[in-house]
């Protein structure tokens, strides 16, 4: 017992990446306004946030590509200001766009990229074979990348990021634009990597993806971190257990807030429906019926990360 506890304490101090008050300014504009976080070895850590929240700028800093304007950042215990090449040699980066060599074959893309890390040819050939298998692309090894589907290109981009056997894999919106089959396959591969001990940092717009993949995550908005924790914990902290979605025909919903407020911890009136945040959805629904409130449709569901996200970052469209 005490051994296990000791081990746990040791693990929790074993940070692969530590950021303190990171700021990124572009001229007058501050994209990131002082964020702090630490990531454990072996952890899957998520960054959520609307467009323009500062996710991509943060990812570029922790990829040791762009330099923080102020604050301290250590990756593998190294300083990206002076040890960028060393750090990047131990990182795998999956960018938002695939950035593959379209004219070259699948295998050539892997082997040539590996030369950037100065890996010997024999090793690259071996690893490429292994990664082609991992990415389920062995049969397409000699095809031009241009001919691959979107999902295949994405898997190849991830395989390419693994050519140097990175300790830390950084994925910027890994499944954007993929169909459900391709997404699930990717999740399965990422989960396998996690089991093998690869630390992962993921940004995503998909809340189900964040719940699936991340042990812990932060929600960013306007360049700052507005919440941090494991997905389930964030839901219980920032939302109720259940949500009732009510629709009242074509009527305007505006008068409904005051009428429904006594029945829920929080009421949110949207143009097409009303959301009631409650602990026991069916109980509340029964009370509403008893009180003569009859919606045209009512749906009770579990609170999700999406509710937390929208609560924290607002429903207004950000472009």
């Amino acid at each position, binding site marked *: 017992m005490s051994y296990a506890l000791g081990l746990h304490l040791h693990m929790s101090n074993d940070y692969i990446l530590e950021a303190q008050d990171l700021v990124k300014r572009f001229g007058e504009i501050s994209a990131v306004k002082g964020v702090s976080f630490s990531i454990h070895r072996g952890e899957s850590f998520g960054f959520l946030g609307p467009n323009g929240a500062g996710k991509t700028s943060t990812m570029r800093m922790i990829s040791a590509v762009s330099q923080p304007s102020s604050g301290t950042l250590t990756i593998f215990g190294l300083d990206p200001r002076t040890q*960028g090449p060393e750090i990047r040699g131990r990182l795998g980066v999956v960018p938002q766009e695939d950035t593959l*060599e379209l004219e070259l074959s699948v295998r050539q893309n892997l082997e040539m990229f590996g*030369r*950037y890390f100065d890996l010997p040819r024999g090793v690259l050939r071996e690893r490429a074979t292994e990664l082609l298998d991992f990415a389920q692309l062995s049969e397409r090894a000699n095809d031009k990348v241009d001919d691959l589907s979107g999902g295949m290109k994405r898997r190849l981009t991830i395989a390419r990021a693994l050519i140097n056997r990175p*300790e830390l894999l950084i994925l910027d919106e890994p499944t954007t634009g993929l169909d459900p089959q391709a997404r699930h396959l990717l999740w399965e591969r990422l989960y396998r990597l996690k089991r*093998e001990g690869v630390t992962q940092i993921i940004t995503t717009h998909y809340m189900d993806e964040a719940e699936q993949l991340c042990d812990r995550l932060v929600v960013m908005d306007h360049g700052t971190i507005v919440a941090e924790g494991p997905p389930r914990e964030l839901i219980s902290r920032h939302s109720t257990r259940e949500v009732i979605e009510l629709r009242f025909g074509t009527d305007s919903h505006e008068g409904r807030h005051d009428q429904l407020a006594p029945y829920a911890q929080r009421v949110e009136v949207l143009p097409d429906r009303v959301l009631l945040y409650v602990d026991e959805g069916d109980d509340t629904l029964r009370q509403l019926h008893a009180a003569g409130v009859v919606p045209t449709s009512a749906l009770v569901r579990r609170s999700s990360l999406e509710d937390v996200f929208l609560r924290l970052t607002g429903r207004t469209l950000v472009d």
Partner: protein
Amino acid sequence: MTDTLEPRLGWSRWRRSWWYHAKTYAHTWRGSVASTILFPIFYLAALGVGVGHLVTKHTGLVQGQTYLHFIAPSLLATTAMQLGEGESLWPVLAAVKWIRNYHAAAATPLEPEDIYVGKLTWVVTRSFATGVVYTIVIACFGALQSWWSLTLPFIAALITLAFSAPLIAYAATVQSDGSFMTIYRFAFVPMFLFSATFYPLTAYPGYLRPVVQLVPLYHGVALARAAAFGQGAWGALLCHVVFLLAMAVIGVTLGRRTLRRRLVD
């Protein structure tokens, strides 16, 4: 999967970029090899032999040379310039904006300066190789008269370096290729036509000659001609070399910065 095999850090980082460019070319080169060999043959046959026949008939020798001999070195110089243009504008914009493969490279141990130097040295390497092929073709037309013509591949490399270095620097700063066509029309095409390429500088009226001498390609053409004929004043040759080197130095100084700004903000 996570046992990190120590990378064999033998190759300096810019050489890895050079190698990557070379390898990409090697996988897609077939079309360009044929044109590298055939183009100078067509060109020398049409202009050197064909037009040359007329010139010789009407005016005799040009600067003591047959017309074929006179224009063969300028063919090498203009080709070196065109190689620098072609390799340094669209491919660089594609790499930083459309395909973004330079961004992928910047996420590896390479620094933007490594990518820049790797690209530039690769273009220069290709120019040198093209220079060797052209020198051989020109020799086959009997247009080389001096051992100095062995320096022609180096002159080709120098000309390409002088053009490529600032052009990559520029291409790394733009958001679209709109300006590239303008540069072609109003800089490269006139340079190709008016750098004393097809006739000697003395064909210009006296007041225009200093203007032509400010044109970069003129210095390349003059150098190539001097090497092919084995004649020229040392002072003038030095001036040509310094002019081209200055372009390269300015280009490299700017290019390392612009590519860094583009890739790493």
